[in-house]
């Protein structure tokens, strides 16, 4: 499993130019949101929403590329021939995707602070939310990425399948982030974090179980 | 807007029933047509 993760991270490091491009895409998305709203107090109030929408849109770019290297030269079959269960491949990929999204999230936070006047001292809380939310997007995202890489019209299918599914992640992450930015007098953020934990618990196990069936021949 | 009396809702009622009937009827017809085509 560590080897799988190391392989993924090595692959990502080698294609780090792509990560920069995705960051630029995300930052541009945040910029466009601010143009859509205009200079108003609403920007600060909904900064959490914009951040997570931007992150979600960017995730479709990273996730659709996730199995790109496996699709070339039938690398996927080669990996499956190894004497390790397929879900090891899944968890390695999903973890790597999560790390990628977390890095992107961390990079977008200063953009959010600057554009939306959304400064906050609760940086650790926001880091936790970014980690949990990214994990929530990556778990089903990696599974669907494996499916759609082998199907037609993959660019359209992946967001179409993924977005309805991660509505709870979006709700919880946006709510928790907004509370961290705007203040959380009644400590509601805790419940949203529990929701994120529950979602991750369910989906990391479910998708790992089902991955075998998705890549079998 | 809880409580109080909602007046004149008949157009909405007809809209709801009519749309439901239309959708179900269209789907049923599409099924029969597709079934004929697949024979």
């Amino acid at each position, binding site marked *: 499993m560590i080897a799988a993760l190391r392989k993924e991270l090595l692959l990502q490091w080698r294609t780090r130019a792509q990560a920069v491009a995705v960051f630029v895409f995300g930052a541009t998305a945040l910029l466009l949101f601010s143009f859509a709203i205009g200079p108003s107090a609403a920007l600060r109030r909904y900064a959490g929403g914009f951040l997570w929408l931007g992150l979600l849109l960017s995730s479709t770019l990273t996730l659709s590329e996730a199995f790109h290297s496996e699709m070339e030269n039938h690398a996927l079959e080669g990996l499956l021939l190894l004497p390790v269960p397929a879900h090891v491949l899944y968890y390695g990929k999903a973890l790597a995707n999560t790390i990628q999204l977390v890095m992107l999230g961390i990079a977008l936070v200063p953009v959010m602070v600057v554009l939306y006047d959304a400064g906050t001292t609760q940086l650790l809380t926001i880091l936790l939310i970014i980690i949990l939310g990214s994990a929530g997007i990556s778990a*089903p995202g990696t*599974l*669907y990425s494996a*499916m*759609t890489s*082998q*199907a*037609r*019209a993959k660019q359209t*299918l992946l967001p*179409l*399948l993924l*977005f*309805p*599914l991660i*509505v*709870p992640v979006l*709700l*919880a992450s946006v*709510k928790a982030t907004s509370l961290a930015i705007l203040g959380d007098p009644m400590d*509601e953020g805790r*419940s949203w974090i529990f*929701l994120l934990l*529950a*979602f991750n618990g*369910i*989906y990391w196990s*479910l*998708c790992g179980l*089902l991955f075998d*069936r*998705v890549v*079998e021949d | *807007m*809880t*409580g*109080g*009396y*909602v*007046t*004149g*809702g*008949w157009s*909405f*009622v007809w*809209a*709801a*029933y009519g*749309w*439901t009937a239309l*959708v*179900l009827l269209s*789907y*049923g017809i599409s*099924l*029969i047509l*597709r*079934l004929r085509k*697949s*024979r």
Partner: protein
Amino acid sequence: MITENHRFPRLPYLLIAAGVLCLSVGSYFGLFVAPPEHYMGEVQRIMYVHVPTAWNALLALTFGFICAVVSLFKDDLKWDARMEAAIEVGVLLGFLLCCQGAIWAKPTWGVWWDWDPRLTTTAVLVAAFAGVLALRHFVDDPVKRATWSAVAAIIASADVPIVYYSVRWWNSLHQMQSSPATVSSQFYLPLRANAFGILFLMTGFIMLRARIASRRIATELAPPPAEFLGEMA
């Protein structure tokens, strides 16, 4: 491999006829016989068709989930055909549910959409299962399509309670209006008649749709025509 045997080939048509009959009776009573409700006036009548649609949409998608699970364990693609049918009918009923909900909400709350947790969950559900149907459209190999869409259906089904609870929690913080009032206990007849009506109709639809699906799958699995074999032999 797909098996197809119809013990009662006419059954779906009988069910559809029975469904239309029950719906006519139920709608007649709901529209003309039942009294207007105290607070909501005539608009309450929408509930006599809205609640049965809700029950049956849920039933169809639950059956779809069961077919998905069975489809993963058995080699017979007839469960895949049934799943496709159940999900398509379920998405249709779910879409109808959202429309009825909006038509109910406008005169009652003044807005077309009030973020009611049940309807919002239905909307997300419709999107998720429509995605599963789209997935089926873009995969050509019948066996792969069966496995993948079953997996997608299971994942979507697992999300339903999570979406419901998160939307409910999210909604309650904004102190939104309460969910549509249930039907007054005085008039169960139109409700029950319509419920059976849509149930029969839905079952008939699913059976017919499953036939269409299994015929298509059989065509995809069939060996090539004899001419080609003759050339290679």
